[in-house]
């Protein structure tokens, strides 16, 4: 079969091969492949030349306030607090219960009694949304660094040390961190997500940070210079408040760093339907609502705060998260309408599939190079032959979500924000 495929390929014209390559580049996997391979090669050469590289001691210790804001997270908040308390010397922990009805505050209160000088629990009488819950922290702490942690995410023991180190550089405003999937082996749905998180966050964000085009720090685990958060008077209404905050800080002239080994473990949806809903929200409010509508001034060279890195961030997001989706649809139509019948041939799709799987394997090498848990990540990588199908599903979802956002501004009607807040929020 392989020889048939090679034989079939050898008879393709350059135009046809180019057409196939265009289709490949519209997918996420092959795109990551190029960036991560280059980054990995660079690091390998640099590490070989300087064996002490990356082994610096933790010599920066600013005061840190970990903000755990959540709604109805009584079952998991205790584990999150436990994963934070005692891992860092100059630490405050603010648990903000955003009007929970399941006794989240009561679950956190024993830790406040056990560590009264570290843990504080703030209870809102009714729900106000995640952004305002995070903003409450600004009037409750004077710590130098705010670390936002989701109530269902647990940190590794040295994660706080890792995430504050980039703040040594005064130009760093936000530090993004790695989010890993805790329930990776629950089913195929979580398995795919675990591989995706490893590739797009653990490896992908490192590459994006190196290229200075990282536009986001996951709301699950990210660190902000408090002075900047205060200057901006906190987070704006979500969804997508994490992306929005990072872009606002970028617009102030600060850079975004990525702490690869500041790791938190989080639960991901175990049902396809829940995953669909989550991604529809993420994809919709990202490039369209925040980049294309709210912060389109970062692409305006005449704007007083114009920066080239922000412009590339805009280009990166709009191109890969928005245009590539529609480009893929156009490419599919073009392929099917080819007079040569290229789009109808099974070998065409077999070639694309084989190339996509191959493009997943190169980032795997990079992943193994950086991975702190090679055995686990190696097992996760067994899902790679099926990843192109998963990525195709996400691409379709992205096109759908972006279209909904462009046409209906659907993110403004999400249950993520309470109705009384959503009704008066500015529409971008």
């Amino acid at each position, binding site marked *: 079969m392989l020889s048939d495929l090679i034989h079939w390929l050898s008879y393709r014209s350059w135009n046809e091969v180019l057409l196939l390559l265009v289709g490949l580049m519209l997918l996420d996997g092959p795109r990551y492949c190029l960036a991560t391979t280059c980054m990995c090669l660079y690091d390998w050469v640099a590490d070989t030349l300087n064996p002490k590289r990356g082994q610096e001691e933790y010599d920066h210790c600013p005061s840190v306030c970990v903000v755990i804001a959540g709604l109805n997270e009584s079952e998991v908040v205790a584990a999150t607090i436990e994963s934070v308390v005692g891992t860092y010397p100059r630490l405050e922990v603010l648990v903000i219960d955003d009007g929970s009805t399941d006794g989240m505050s009561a679950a956190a209160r024993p830790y406040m009694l056990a560590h009264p000088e570290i843990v504080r629990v703030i209870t809102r009488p009714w729900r106000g949304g995640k952004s*305002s819950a995070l903003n409450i922290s600004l009037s409750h702490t004077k710590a130098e660094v705010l670390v936002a942690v989701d109530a269902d995410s647990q940190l590794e023991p040295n994660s706080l040390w890792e995430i504050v180190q980039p703040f040594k550089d005064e130009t760093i405003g936000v530090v993004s961190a790695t989010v890993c999937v805790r329930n990776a082996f629950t089913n195929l749905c979580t398995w795919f997500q675990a591989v995706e998180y490893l590739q797009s966050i653990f490896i992908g964000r490192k590459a994006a940070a190196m290229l200075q085009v990282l536009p986001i720090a996951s709301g699950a685990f990210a660190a902000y210079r408090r002075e900047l958060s205060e200057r901006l008077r906190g987070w704006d209404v979500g969804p997508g408040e994490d992306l929005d905050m990072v872009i606002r800080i970028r617009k102030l002239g600060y850079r975004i760093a990525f702490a690869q080994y500041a790791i938190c473990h989080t639960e991901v949806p175990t049902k396809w339907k829940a995953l669909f809903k989550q991604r529809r929200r993420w994809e919709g409010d990202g490039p369209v609502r925040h980049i294309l509508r709210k912060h389109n001034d970062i692409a305006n060279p005449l704007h007083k705060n114009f920066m080239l890195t922000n412009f590339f961030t805009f280009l990166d997001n709009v191109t890969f998260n928005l245009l590539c989706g529609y480009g893929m649809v156009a490419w599919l139509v073009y392929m099917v309408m080819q007079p040569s019948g290229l789009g109808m041939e099974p070998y065409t799709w077999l070639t694309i599939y084989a190339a996509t799987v191959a493009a997943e394997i190169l980032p795997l090498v990079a992943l193994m190079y950086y991975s702190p848990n090679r055995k686990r990540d190696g097992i996760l990588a067994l899902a790679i032959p099926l990843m192109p199908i998963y990525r195709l599903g996400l691409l379709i979802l992205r096109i759908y979500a972006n279209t909904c956002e462009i046409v209906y501004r659907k993110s403004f009607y999400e249950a993520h924000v309470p109705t009384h807040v959503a009704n008066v929020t500015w529409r971008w």
Partner: protein
Amino acid sequence: MTTLNQAAASPIIDAARHNERTERRLTRVLPLVAWSVRADGQLDESAPYGGFLKDISADGVEFELHSESPIAQSTFVIGVECPDSVTRYAGISVRHRSECANGTRFGAAFDGIANSVLEERCRKPFLDEKLFQYRLPFPPTVYESWEAAGILKRSVLDRVMLCPRCRSVPTFRFACRNCRSGRLDHSLLIHHFPCAFVAPSTDFERGEDLVCPKCLTKKLVAGTDFEFMPGEFTCRGCGWKDQDLEQTGHCLNCETRFAAHQAAEEELVGYDAQRLDPLALLSIVE
């Protein structure tokens, strides 16, 4: 507050009927046991006397106690075995006595220290206004001796929180968890819905108008544009800021301040007794 002397000086019958029982008498012979009571209220350590109740009225009893020698004591607590097989007790002081075939015959009134111990107000703790402590009117040894004889039964009436230092009664308030002061200022927060900004309400005040410091929106309308939220408490004593206060006790006696969870939790103990009530006895007999 009732002291030992006051309790002893509060007879159930008035002075006019002091020496002679004027109420209608119920003549009934029932077995009884009698313990002699000392002046301090404790039971005499000698064995109780056996005997018979002869008659009973609302203000006293007539009874015989068996003994080989004359009985000189004049204050007793008697336990009468009633027809319903329950032993009921009464405190008496002897008014007159006479020798009889088996021992001594007594005429007695329901009064004296023995009667006081059995009264309900003396079997329950009261709050001493000077020491702010709960205590019983008689010394603990009195109740212990009566309990050992089976006349009184110990019962837990309540649980109370007391000062861990002096066991006096405290008052409780929500106070600063740092210095335990109750002098606090409470701030209100405003959550502006459109921009999610949250800050003390004072930050929003511009003259008589409310203006969001983040998005500079003017003339904010409560409920539509913003909501009030409970903010932090600031201690006027030490400046400590916290959203949650700690329940703090303040001892009324020694003025110690302590966290509520440090309070000494004690049981308030009283005593139950089956009192000999002539009217109740009448209904049982008939």
